[in-house]
């Protein structure tokens, strides 16, 4: 458990640096370091599938963010009412922690009640589906209908992005590739 606490402290320090630094490109690179530490934390907790997916998606989002911010450095925000903003933030955090402490008392202990459906998946998943990777067995055999819905969500998101970008490209007559069919 010691490695997990070291990774958690590293992630908190990295997030604070990413908020406080003045250069926008350095902030994006620091966010990438936080994502790498999160992937290592998943690996320490024995979840290699989630670790691979987290690492790959982090790299793709980092490339898109760098490509978007490499030409435009935003001006630093004017700090006019820092005292009022700090007081509001501290009060909100205090109320949030109070509500969390009240809610955590009503939850049952960790691991109870025992889930009989998941126990059945672990015991008979290899025999019923033949897949050695139990995550793939649950995603594509027991719960394949949910995966079909998730693929439909991604399809709709791609269509929405292409529609919005094509309208912006038609206003610019120099760029004919963004508006072709």
């Amino acid at each position: 458990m010691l490695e997990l606490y070291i990774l958690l402290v590293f992630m908190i320090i990295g997030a604070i640096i990413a908020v406080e630094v003045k250069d926008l490109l350095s902030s994006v690179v620091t966010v990438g370091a936080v994502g790498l530490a999160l992937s290592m934390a998943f690996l320490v907790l024995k979840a290699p599938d989630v670790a691979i997916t987290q690492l790959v998606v982090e790299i793709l989002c980092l490339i898109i963010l760098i490509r978007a911010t490499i030409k435009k450095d935003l001006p630093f925000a004017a700090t006019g009412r820092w005292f009022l903003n700090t007081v509001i933030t501290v009060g909100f955090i205090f109320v949030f922690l109070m509500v969390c402490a009240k809610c955590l008392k009503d939850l049952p202990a960790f691991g109870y009640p025992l889930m009989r459906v998941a126990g059945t998946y672990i015991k008979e998943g290899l025999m019923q589906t033949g897949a050695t990777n139990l995550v793939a067995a649950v995603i594509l055999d027991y719960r394949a209908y949910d995966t079909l819905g998730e693929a439909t969500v991604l399809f709709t998101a791609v269509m929405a992005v292409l529609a919005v970008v094509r309208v912006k490209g038609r206003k610019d007559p120099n760029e004919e590739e963004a508006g072709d069919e």
Partner: protein
Amino acid sequence: MSKEREQGMSLIVKTITRLTVGLILLYGIYIVSHGHVSPGGGFAGGVIIALSFVHLMLAYGKDVALRKLPKAAASFFEGMGAMLFLGIALLGFTGGYFFLNFISKGEPFRLFSAGIIPLCNVAISLKVGSGLFAIFVALVLLKVGSENKDI
């Protein structure tokens, strides 16, 4: 190569990209095809395949990458992935219900073992990779258009 010397990054980046982009694509295909015996699967493998084309576009400029994989091909592969996944699901009605595992299970720890799960992995990887590549191409073309307007 002399015509491609004007746009893109420097010569060192282009040489390293030419040596490594094939290995990245091969690793993505390995992650997809072994998704049922080792960690990985359709989603992560599809994003790695899309990242290889994004790597090519960042190093060589947008013309070379769009000659390797045009936008029409990307949209065709995305629709074909969705249709393949739905077709596998509908083939289960031959045995009685939706998403029936109608191929024989085989023995564990083999590549051809788990019925329809590898086919579903291939369909999801086609869909996810093509979709993310299409989103990246749209964002890059939008950025180039707005930068040309400023100059």
